[in-house]
């Protein structure tokens, strides 16, 4: 058992602006733990988490692989989240490099086919598009969940960049809910980008039907 990362240094005030680990976070940790052995054996060197929020997930990967075995980079559009990610990395002895950025934009050029572990627990809740636009601009707590049409507005942009980022051994872990249309996402990445996929875990929790899908070459 890999312990759930310690986020006790974060306060109620932090969680007014930053997504507090919840069911979707935990199902992602479960999926990563289930894959722990094969992840270790694949000798990943670059781990990129998009939308790291509290930093809980990247810290967990750090516990799986070891703090010095890989580079842990994390982006978030929310500057508070970047700060929390840095602190949570420290608290759990994983050096995480937070970047205040949208998706992987500053890294796309240099990390072409170079990311071994790509992780995204996106804002997946279906909302009006305007609400998702506002949340992206606002870069605060609303950006943690407001996902626009079908909850796919933000995820959609990343999906077209995944193939470009993944290394030959690369894997992409995506959290999704039923309304995101998981079969359509999988078909699209297969047909357009030739990526295979598997549902690692799925469960119903708190009124949501959550999935973690893993994509690879």
């Amino acid at each position, binding site marked *: 058992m890999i312990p759930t990362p310690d986020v006790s240094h974060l306060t109620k005030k932090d969680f007014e602006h930053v997504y507090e680990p919840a069911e979707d976070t935990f199902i992602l940790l479960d999926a990563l733990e289930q894959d722990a052995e094969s992840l270790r054996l694949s000798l990943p060197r670059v781990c990129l988490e998009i939308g790291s929020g509290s930093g809980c997930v990247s810290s967990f990967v750090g516990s799986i692989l070891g703090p010095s075995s890989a580079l842990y980079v994390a982006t978030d559009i929310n500057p508070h989240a970047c*700060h929390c990610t840095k602190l949570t990395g420290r608290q759990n002895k994983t050096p995480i*490099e937070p970047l205040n*950025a949208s998706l992987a934009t500053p890294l796309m050029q*240099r990390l072409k086919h170079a990311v071994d572990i790509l992780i995204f627990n996106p804002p997946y809740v279906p909302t009006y598009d305007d609400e998702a636009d506002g949340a992206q601009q606002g870069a605060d707590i609303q950006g943690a969940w407001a996902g626009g049409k079908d909850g796919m507005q933000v995820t959609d942009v990343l999906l077209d960049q995944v193939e470009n980022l993944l290394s030959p051994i690369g894997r992409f872990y995506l959290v999704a809910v039923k309304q995101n249309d998981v079969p359509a996402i999988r078909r699209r990445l297969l047909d357009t980008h030739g990526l295979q996929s598997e549902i690692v875990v799925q469960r119903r929790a708190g009124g949501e039907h959550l999935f973690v899908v893993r994509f690879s070459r």
Partner: protein
Amino acid sequence: MVRLITHNLLACHVKGCTSNNFPLQFKDVQVELREAEFNPDFLRGFIPRLEWGALVDAARQLGDTSLPAEPPEMLDDDFLQKLHHVLLEVHIEEGAMICPNCNHVYPISNGIPNMASAYHQPIHNVVN
């Protein structure tokens, strides 16, 4: 904590700025040194992903001249220790990174680079 390993992966992404946009140049930086666990396997595995010239340049900008202009063929412990220090123990806490092409400024504060400002940058700022 922008370390040089991360700096080596960042390019300017202002719309339309697609050439000569790497590496970002440091300006007015404050650096802190913090020890990190030495892992030669990680370093050997990471070397192929580095832009070597950009790394050597960035280290020189910060006053560290310990790296050779080309990576040596023999990756002995002495070299790997130097590389380890440059890549993983030098933390840029404050200052800015500037695009060599369009001059966009990416501020660093509390060790976190603000790369988000690029999305709001009007295209006419690009100078070529």
